[in-house]
């Protein structure tokens, strides 16, 4: 078990390094001069050159990559080329926002999707199964930004229940939660459907396994079998999907963050791409990748805990 997790962790670190290298390749491929963008149209060539030199943008890419990684090892994320602030400040102020959003979104989706999936799996082929299937597939289809804007119009503008923008007062937990509701809703809706379908299939498959019959042969009540003994096995694939899902949400929450004007990692990375603010981009991606790795690691740990066979197979 330990070495299984050690392996996952080492693999995660490798993912981080490879992702960074890929990122450098991409940065190389994306045109657009950071100096021009940062200084605006009125800047002279000399000013731009001076700026490039200051920010180390005149170095060969490999040198830039190496020095970025080297500095990163020492905990230095570099400097935002636009506002000259330490990238770490930007990234770590955005980080909790994004993590809470992604986690809240997936958690509420799981809280609703898992019971729906179980319900459908316990009554396969019935009307209920069909209705749950229909609803869950429809919500899977709706892009989050559309859910977001309609949720805004309904709950913020019309009903005035929830604030429309921002992440809430940093010191005020209740306020932050209040601000979290709608974005988490928007981001989670599709996941409700996705999780419900996944849980259903996985439950049906597990219910057909021979050991489930043993429970029934011992008179264990059906609901108890489903919840106590089948679910822990059936959620294994769901958890690994959720691990990846949370990871994706971290960088994929851009649109929802834009709509709710929530300063998060997704929109930070997006803005950085658009303004070719590469130090910020690198910082944001390092952190999202690390979170992705962490989310998967947590998922794997959970799975290893749920299914000891995996841990030994490695």
């Amino acid at each position: 078990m330990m070495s299984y997790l050690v392996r996952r962790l080492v693999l995660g670190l490798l993912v981080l390094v490879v992702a960074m290298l890929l990122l450098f390749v991409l940065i190389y491929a994306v045109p657009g001069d950071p100096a021009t963008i940062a200084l605006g149209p009125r800047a002279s060539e000399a000013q731009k050159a001076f700026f490039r030199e200051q920010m180390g943008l005149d170095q060969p890419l490999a040198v830039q990559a190496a020095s970025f990684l080297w500095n990163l090892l020492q905990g230095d994320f570099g400097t935002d080329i636009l506002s000259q602030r330490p990238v770490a400040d930007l990234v770590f102020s955005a980080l909790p926002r994004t993590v809470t959003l992604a986690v809240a979104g997936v958690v509420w989706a799981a809280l609703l999707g898992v019971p729906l999936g179980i319900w459908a799996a316990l009554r396969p082929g019935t009307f209920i199964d069909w209705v749950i299937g229909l609803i869950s597939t429809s919500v899977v289809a709706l892009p989050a930004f559309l859910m977001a804007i309609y949720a805004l119009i309904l709950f913020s503008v019309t009903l005035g229940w929830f604030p429309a923008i921002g992440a809430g007062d940093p010191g005020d937990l209740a306020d932050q939660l209040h601000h979290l509701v709608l974005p988490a809703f928007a981001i989670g809706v599709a996941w409700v459907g996705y999780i419900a379908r996944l849980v259903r299939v996985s439950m049906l498959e597990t219910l057909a396994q021979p050991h489930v019959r043993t429970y029934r042969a011992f008179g264990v009540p059906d609901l108890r079998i489903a919840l106590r003994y089948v679910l822990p096995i059936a959620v294994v694939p769901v958890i690994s999907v959720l691990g990846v899902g949370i990871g994706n949400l971290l960088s994929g929450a851009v649109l929802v963050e834009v709509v709710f004007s929530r300063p998060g990692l997704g929109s930070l990375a997006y803005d950085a791409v658009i303004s070719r603010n590469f130090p910020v981009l690198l910082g944001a991606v390092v952190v999202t990748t690390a979170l992705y790795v962490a989310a998967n690691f947590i998922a794997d740990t959970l799975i290893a805990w749920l299914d000891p066979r995996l841990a030994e197979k490695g």
Partner: protein
Amino acid sequence: MSAPVLQLDKVCIRYPGAPADAVRGVSFDLRRGETLGLVGESGSGKSTLAAATMGLLPAGTAVQGAIRFEGRALFSEITDQQLRRLRGRRIGTISQDPFTALNPVMRIGTQLDALLHWTHDRPKKDRMARIETMLERVGLSDPKVRMAQYPHQMSGGILQRISIAAAMLAEPTLLIADEPTTALDATTEAQILGIMAEAKATLDGATLFITHDMSVVERLCDRIAVLYAGELVETGTVREVLDAPQHPYTRALLDCDPARITEPTRRLPTIEGTVPPIHKRPDGCIFAPRCPAAIARCHAEAPERHELGPRRSAACHLASPTPVTP
């Protein structure tokens, strides 16, 4: 005398969507202290009968006739809810495949405890102690260690012993064992049979033992019931049936047993012909097309059950009361 533990009365079972009954008109009874060996060719309905007794047939399966547990009929006098409560407590099972019968992701101790769910009002320590004792009884040398292990960490023989322990923990009145030793080698099989024989001596109940292996029947069972194509063809005590089989199928089956052939031979006896598909059964005796002794009547008229003695019968026109061999 009290009611038999299990009594089957003209049981017919049809799977949903199947063209014909998988089990037809099977009657036998099983009394306290007895072990009944249920034998017959593959697909003859042995497992189906076991599942019916436990009420674990697939939804939509039609069951006719009566299956009585301690005198009360399943489905009519015993509701599904009640039957569920009987399972595990009064009716125990040992399944065929030890590798898949246990939950792969649960420790053995926890798992056995989960199966004994109705005892959960007792303190956990007591329950665990009981499980430990039982594992020791089925011959596991280090029960504590085993309880902390997962199924994939154990061999088939150990798993099968654990299954037996699980079934016996409840001290069931009726124990149903469906080919529990098929996957095991001879020494392990012998150990398991030993455990079962011991259990039989201590438990105040009856056992239904399904197998293909006549020598196992001989070693463990008191009585035997022979199925062919869903029908009960012969029943009686082990000695009666094995020593003087009255149904030609039983006879043929015994002849096929390589263990009974003392001189090694390359050419093993078989029964000529094939089992008719369940929906294309002949009008007369179901075994007639393969029967070496068949007479004209066999092809025209299905044989009644011939009572050949106390609790001894054969479904054959040619059957006659057994001269009990000394």
